[in-house]
């Protein structure tokens, strides 16, 4: 198997971890490993940037009381798309990089998207406003978020396949 095949193999779903927070695939997990202080600081800086981006979107798309929180929805959809795209691309381009994934996915995109705000907003809508708006927001975020993650994965796989075909043509 050539180096090239290995890279393509890494773009296949079976080699992606289910949990993107994990720095390594599940089969190489072991207890007692320590995260370097530099990695934690890098994740922290990326997380700060992600949180600021989310804050900025929230400012640009303000939520009216009782209305759908469009800012959080936009953040969670775009972040889910980004995670799906980034994980497949990183597995293809930088299969051996150990640090890029935790910084980009865990740090930036994890800090950018938020589950707690989503749940508290849905709870507030259920409690004080409109059951229909709360349910639409709760289910809409879920469907659009998972759809966006899937779209990101498929988009990145298409990019990988296109590049592979291009390289094969060039090699001939």
């Amino acid at each position: 198997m050539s180096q090239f095949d290995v890279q393509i193999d890494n773009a296949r779903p079976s080699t992606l971890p289910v949990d993107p927070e994990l720095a390594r695939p599940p089969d190489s997990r072991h207890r007692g490993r320590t995260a370097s202080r530099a990695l934690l600081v890098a994740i922290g800086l990326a997380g700060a940037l992600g949180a600021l981006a989310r804050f900025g979107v929230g400012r640009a798309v303000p939520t009216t009381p009782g209305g759908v929180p469009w800012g959080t929805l936009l953040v969670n959809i775009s972040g889910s798309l980004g995670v799906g795209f980034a994980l497949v691309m990183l597995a293809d381009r930088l299969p051996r990089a150990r640090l890029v994934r935790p910084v980009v996915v865990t740090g930036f995109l994890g800090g950018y998207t938020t589950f707690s705000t989503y749940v508290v907003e849905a709870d507030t809508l259920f409690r004080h406003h409109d059951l229909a708006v709360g349910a639409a927001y709760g289910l809409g975020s879920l469907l659009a978020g998972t759809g966006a993650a899937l779209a990101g994965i498929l988009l990145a796989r298409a990019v990988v396949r296109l590049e592979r075909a291009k390289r094969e043509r060039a090699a001939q």
Partner: protein
Amino acid sequence: MTFLLVCCVAVGGFVGAPARFLVDRFVADRVESDFPFGTLVVNLSGSFALGLLTGLGLRLHLPVAVEALLGTGLCGAFTTFSSWSFETVRLVEDGQLLTASLNVLVSLAVGLAAAAAGLALGLAA
């Protein structure tokens, strides 16, 4: 004022994201399962914490800067929607439909309950 809020959000995010990384790894290292327990633990605890903060904010009228630091920054970055949605898609792709459904249902049902419990506790404090 906006500069202060920006700093608060950044500091909260700087702490929240590595905290999620450490908690997720701590849980995933100790639970042998395809179910993403690490993400579940951070999302449920973060939802409870944000509910509590929201309740306390309604009751005690916390400064906006405190809510930016602990709510938007810390709880927002500590919890993650993108990992949750990605993991759900990956489980479906793997053919683990039951685990994927459980991941959605438990996260939503217990997440809403945790936020409501935190809110009630904050309002009662």
